[in-house]
């Protein structure tokens, strides 16, 4: 039997997919860089208040958070107002000075974002601010939600 050779077109008919991993990797790197993986578990309730004249914090890397609000107790109860930095509640207000100073040395352009519950009293915040002054972390940001 005669063997017929198949006629073949000169060009390939497939879409070249060899560049796809490159594209995907590029997207991957973008999301890897923008992701902030570390989330703190809140031990105080922070229900932010609203304001109209607010600004955005562009450089999230510079931000260090202080949470102030009523302590969450077991059984859905709320305790007294407490200050939380990172993962622990700071009972000793004067300890904030050293903690924030150490953070400032690591990141000299640090912004302290104060996330304060709307019902907490101003007195505790003043004490914290006094500590921040002593630690010479002067840039603060009162975290609020947008009014609209």
């Amino acid at each position, binding site marked *: 039997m005669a063997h017929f050779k198949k006629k073949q077109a000169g060009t390939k008919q497939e879409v070249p*997919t060899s560049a*796809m*991993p490159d594209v*995907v*990797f590029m*997207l*991957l790197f973008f*999301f*890897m860089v*923008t*992701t*902030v*993986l570390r989330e703190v578990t809140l031990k105080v309730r922070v229900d932010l*208040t609203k*304001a*109209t*004249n*607010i*600004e*955005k*914090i*562009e450089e*999230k890397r510079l*931000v260090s958070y202080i949470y*102030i609000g009523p302590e969450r107790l077991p059984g859905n109860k709320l305790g007294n107002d407490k200050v939380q930095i990172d993962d622990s509640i700071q009972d000793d207000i004067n300890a904030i000075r050293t903690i924030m100073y150490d953070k400032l040395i690591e990141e000299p352009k640090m*912004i302290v*974002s*104060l996330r*304060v*519950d*709307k*019902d*907490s*009293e*101003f*007195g505790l*915040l*003043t004490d914290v*601010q*006094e500590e*921040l*002054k*002593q630690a*010479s*972390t*002067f*840039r*603060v*940001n*009162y*975290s*609020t*939600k*947008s009014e609209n």
Partner: protein
Amino acid sequence: MLLKKRKREGAEINGSSMADIAFLLLIFFLVTTTINVDTGIGMVLPPPLDPAETPPPIRERNLMKILVNAQGLVLMDEEPTQMDQVQEKIIEFVKNPENLETLSVSPQAAIVSIKTQRQTPYSIYIDMLDEVIGAYAILRNEAALSNFGVEYSRLSKENKKIVDDIYPKKISIAEPDEE
């Protein structure tokens, strides 16, 4: 032998699954990423006062004293004020269009001092601060429109600085009295 010798395969690593792996990682990071931006009111705290040093003297007329008590009642320069009138009053105080003796000498000299009680809820304090910053935003917008003809937000960095120097935002947060 009847069996044909097999052709040898090329010595390449199969890279087709690399895209799958990359996709998997991509989806993971897509899901975990939070792109929401933090918003808030930015402030710069003053350096701590040296107890040996006396604070610099400020002329009484250049200082707008705002007192907020725990119930949210406002006193502005010893005058009871509603929250929604605060903005107006601050604009009048800073600009002082009729050159009154009791109001600020010039916008550059004006200082707004906010004082609250320890018991004041945080939301009331933020409302107050918001009003004051709002008043300055209006003033700066006016200055931007009259000097450059565009809104403040659309000014370049250098021009913003010029406008900021016309209306410097001097807000002092006084320490609450011990009670």
